[in-house]
C-alpha cells in the first residue's frame, strides 16, 4: 500500500486513496475529501499550466506532522495527503486530502483544517504559466 503522505510528479487515483483510507478501520463512519485542481483562469488571465517547486524534505516532514496533528486534534481514524509537484496542466489534479473519522463533523473539520494549514506551512510554491508569461502565485485565503 502507498504511503499515507506523498509528494509525487504523477497523478493520483482518488479511488485508490479512499480505498487505502477505508482499509485502515471499519469504524469509519465519515470520510471527507478535499481535491485541489488546476484552474484554467486566474487573476483575469488564461492559465495553461501550473508549476510547483518545493523544499522537498521539509515539505514531506511538514505534511507528515500536519497529518499527525490532524489525527490527534480531531480524533481521526486515519488521514491521507498527496500533493503533486512538477508541472500540471489546467484541469489536472494538484492535491488530495482525506480525513476519516467515526462521524462526519470531525472528518469535515479536519479536512478543512489540513488544507488551510498546508497552504500556510508547507514549503511548496506555485507558478502560473499563461500564454503571455509566468508568475509566482501570491498566497491568499
Amino acid at each position, binding site marked *: 500500500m502507498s504511503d499515507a503522505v506523498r509528494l509525487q510528479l504523477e497523478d493520483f487515483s482518488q479511488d485508490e486513496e479512499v480505498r487505502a483510507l477505508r482499509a485502515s478501520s471499519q469504524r469509519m463512519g465519515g470520510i471527507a475529501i478535499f481535491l485541489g485542481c488546476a484552474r484554467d483562469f486566474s487573476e483575469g488571465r488564461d492559465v495553461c499550466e501550473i508549476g510547483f517547486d*518545493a523544499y522537498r*524534505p521539509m515539505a514531506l516532514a511538514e505534511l507528515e506532522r500536519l497529518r499527525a496533528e490532524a489525527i490527534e486534534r480531531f480524533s481521526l481514524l486515519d488521514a491521507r495527503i498527496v500533493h503533486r509537484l512538477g508541472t500540471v496542466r489546467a484541469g489536472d489534479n*494538484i492535491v488530495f486530502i482525506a480525513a476519516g473519522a467515526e462521524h462526519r463533523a470531525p472528518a469535515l473539520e479536519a479536512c478543512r483544517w489540513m488544507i488551510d494549514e498546508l497552504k500556510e506551512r*508547507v514549503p*511548496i*510554491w506555485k507558478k502560473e504559466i499563461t500564454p503571455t508569461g509566468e508568475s*509566482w502565485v501570491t498566497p491568499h485565503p
Partner: protein
Amino acid sequence: MIKVLFFGPVADRVGLRQIEVPFRDGLCWQDVRDVLQPQYPEAFALVSVTAVNGERVRDDGHTPLADGAEIVFMSRVSGG
C-alpha cells in the same frame, strides 16, 4: 561549508538554487543573511521564513551553526 538553498520566487530572483558560504566557528544564520541580503536585495525582500536543517527557525538568528548546515531563506508558501 554552509549550504544555502533557494526555491520558488526567491530562487528566480537570486538566479541560483544553491550557494555555499564558508563556515567559521560561531557563524549564525543571521550572519549568513547579512552577507547575502545586500547581494540579492530583491530576493530577500520576499523572504519571510528561514529554515535551518529542514526546521523553521524560531530563534533570533544568533544560535551558532554547525559546519555543513543547510539554510533556506523562503518566501510565503503557496502550495495546494
